């Protein structure tokens, strides 16, 4: 790791100010940034730590309206009793991110701002039709995730919360990379007021995406059997030493089936 200046932000406004120092980066849980810095792949001059800002913490459940503030850890999402009742799929998904150390440090805001193409939260927020709230505006999930490690966030813009309406049914199934245990394919299915939304992480050439083929098949029949024979195209899928695009295309359907079965269970 190169030497770096550490700043603990007291508020979001304070963080925005601190971000102006040198080549500063925001630090939340640090579960991606710190390893990248340790291996010298990232070299910010300054770190602005968001994890002690009270206004960025906590989960609110009001009926089906859910707000999760940005610095909430995966462990907190996984173990929040109200959320487990209102949207068990999301709590369950959070309980399977990384390992315990990651879940106690990593945060929802950090995960979506980083938008790793194999991260779990982007699939969840896209399928849940969530809104990403920042210090400047509100952004629909459909417009937020713009590419590999790319988001709609502008300079000085900080994610403060995500909000969504809990769907009637939802579930997430992922197939892990045997080495890293990140998702090779993760499929979040949600059957909500506005219909069925299916988002896929780990597989797309340009990051998380909605699968039109699977959404279409499930639109009128939210049942795993509705996916029998459904094929998703492999053209825009990633291919690497762990999984070919064809294999990922197969896994998307398999994981979608299992997610739908779990959502209906």
């Amino acid at each position, binding site marked *: *790791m190169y030497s770096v200046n550490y700043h603990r932000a007291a508020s979001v406004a304070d963080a925005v100010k601190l971000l102006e120092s040198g080549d500063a980066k925001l630090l939340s849980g640090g579960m991606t940034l710190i390893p990248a810095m340790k*291996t*010298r792949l990232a070299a910010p001059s300054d770190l602005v730590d968001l994890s002690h800002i009270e206004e960025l913490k906590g989960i609110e459940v009001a009926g089906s309206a859910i707000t999760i503030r940005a610095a909430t850890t995966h462990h907190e999402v996984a173990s929040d009793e109200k959320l487990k009742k209102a949207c068990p799929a999301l709590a369950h998904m959070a309980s399977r991110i990384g390992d315990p150390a990651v879940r106690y440090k990593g945060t929802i805001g950090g995960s979506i701002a980083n938008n790793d193409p194999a991260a779990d939260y982007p699939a969840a927020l896209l399928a849940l039709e969530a809104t990403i709230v920042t210090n400047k505006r509100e952004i629909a999930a459909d417009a937020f995730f713009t590419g590999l490690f790319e988001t709609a966030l502008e300079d000085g813009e900080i994610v403060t919360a995500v909000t969504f309406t809990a769907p009637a049914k939802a579930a997430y199934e992922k197939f892990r990379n*045997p*080495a*890293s245990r990140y998702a090779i394919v993760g499929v979040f299915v949600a059957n909500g007021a506005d219909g069925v939304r299916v988002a896929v992480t780990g597989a797309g050439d340009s990051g998380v995406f909605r699968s039109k083929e699977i959404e279409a098949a499930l639109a009128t029949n939210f049942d795993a059997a509705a996916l029998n024979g459904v094929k998703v195209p492999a053209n825009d899928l990633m291919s690497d*030493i*762990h999984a070919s695009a064809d*294999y990922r295309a*197969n896994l998307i359907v398999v994981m979608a089936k299992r997610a739908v079965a779990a959502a209906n269970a």
Partner: protein
Amino acid sequence: MGIEGVGARVARKEDKRFITGAGRYVDDMVVPGMKHAAFVRSPHAHAEIKKIDLKKAQAMPGVIGVLTGKELKADGIGNLICGWMIHSKDGSPMKMGAWSPLAFDRVRYVGDAVVVVVAETKGQARDAAEAVDITYQELKAVVDAPKALERSAPQIHPEADGNLIFDWELGDSAATNAAIKAAAHITRMKIVNNRLVPNAMEPRATLGHYDKAEDHYTCWTTSQNPHLARLVMSAFYNVAPENKLRVIAPDVGGGFGSKIYIYPEEIICLWASKKTGVPVKWVADRTESFLTDAHGRDHVSTVEMAFDKDNRITGLKVDTIANLGAYMSLFSSCVPTYLYATLLSGQYDIPAIHANVRAVYTNTAPVDAYRGAGRPEATYLLERTMETAARELGVSPAELRRKNFITAFPHQTPVIMNYDAGDYAASLDAAMAAADYAGFAQRKADAANRGKLRGIGMSCYIEACGLAPSAAVGSLGAGVGLWESAEVRVNAAGTIEVLTGSHSHGQGHETTFAQLVNQRFGVPIDSVSIVHGDTDKVQMGMGTYGSRSGAVGMSAVAKALDKVEAKAKKIAAHLLEADEGDIVIENGALKVAGTDKQVPWFQMALAAYTAHNLPGGMEPGLKETSFYDPSNFTFPAGCYVCEVEIDPETGVTEVVQFVAADDFGNIINPMIVEGQVHGGVAQGIGQALLEGTRYDASGQLLTASYMDYTMPRADDLPSFKVSTSNTPCPGNPLGIKGCGEAGAIGSPPAVINAITDAIGITDIAMPASPSTVWAAIRATKH
């Protein structure tokens, strides 16, 4: 056996310090004035070094020295060597290319060390290493061994024309060809043994300290054999004469072979310490470990196995290309030759065998011995072929093996080895019973009802351990002898120190060696200390690899204990005024057999040192040494049965049952032996299902971190069913065969035989990852 004696399940003495974080590894060593090294390594697999500009690095904060290969050469430091001479079949010696500890004219793999920076802190050393400016002219690279032999391949070393290091053969070519010609059935296969990265938990590390006042060097290093390190660094690398060089291998966190060899970093840190005037420490980061630890395996072979009309094997012909990487590591040449082809008879009576092995250079990390070293490659080739032959012949894989088993001992194979003892049918029967082999068809049907493909596979392995008779290995080209030393010191109050030339880096010497002493003298194991890993304490030894610590190292201890026992009995007889032949040692006392006359052990020891009343002419003291050279290799063998269930939708293979039935000879501590089998099988399942080392065509290592290299984890593995049915080894005084490598040797073919059985295919590449298995299943449907 007593509660702490031979055969007792004694908890490991050393584990308390390991588990509580109190172990002392090289990185824990701190000496006054110590500074830190960082290496500048080649980013290219093959390139000419055009220019090295150190100016910017030298001006960086905290920098003490920035040193290059030219300076190293000017100071007379020698090239790294391979210590086992192999001659090609045309009689010519192997073609060893020069390996300078710091490359100065050409780099040959990604990770090749070029410049070393010594600085006040590790961070400053790394910062300065990044500031070293090296101009390379890239050359074409080759990573694949068969491709390296093609005419169009780039030439890697001027010494090895066409990248061919040797073209070696073993066995009778004419007799084998005749057997194949006359065969009723021939099974032919292409067998690929995948390259593995050793991944010891503790990365390699070294601390070099030159003491100007004494003109003396001390090297702390992560080594499996510190004495060999001293010998080689003195005799070949010209670092310092042996009497001026102390090598210490303290607690070492796993080796698996990768810490046998002398690497550039030890040499460079010692040299740099003298050059800069400060002690120099280097600890590999995990990426450096992936890039530069000697890798294992990487064979491509073809095999023909000939059968007569009664399904007896009549001949075996093998052609292997072995990838040795960019340089010849210390023992690289013996792995695909005398540790491989000599085991191609397996457990079978095969009248004619011929093996041809070509070893080649490529632009990849050097390849050397890794847990099993040659024997896993032989076992994989043979046991995959046996399984395939049984399927082709339409007979039971178990019965085909049984029919061809060697049943009379000693047995001379056509490939050098003389098997001394074994009962292969006993292991086969034990494994099949433990696996409920007969119930498999029902389990397969049940699995099918759940949508799963279930398969079963077996493997009957043999290996050669206890390396080995010095004269024999010397005649085969080894540059060293393979005996072991021991010294037993009985202190004045009766406690005991055992000094051994073998080295524990996880094996449990501190417990098992003490059990041997407890068995002999009744002294509690807490009163027995095992000393190893320091050339100032133990005069000479050959270290630990090839499952040799028990068979060779403990045999040396047993020989020294014989001498101590004889002298102790003489002293006791004198004190008790009895005949020496009537003295027996029981419960910590020396007794006159059949009487109540006795002298406690500690009192006898005190008498040896007070020397007030010793037999006439006896020297005071009680300390004995022994150098033990075995008369033969040992031959552990066994049968492994693996059962898998495959999810055809995802290609995920679950090992649902794994049975190991081994013959290790006599056992000192069954718990430690089981642990060795568990670890070995985990590594073998890792090779079969998870671990694959991938270079791209340009020579970049794609699997250089745990993000991409799949280490086996607990949830990848089943609970193992292990058992032993042992025939004592007649070749050493303890009857021990060795158990350290068997698991890694026997398991990969059992796993792959199970997977190919489940899918109904002939072969699948290792590692049989989910995507590979899924693609194989899909191919069966087209």
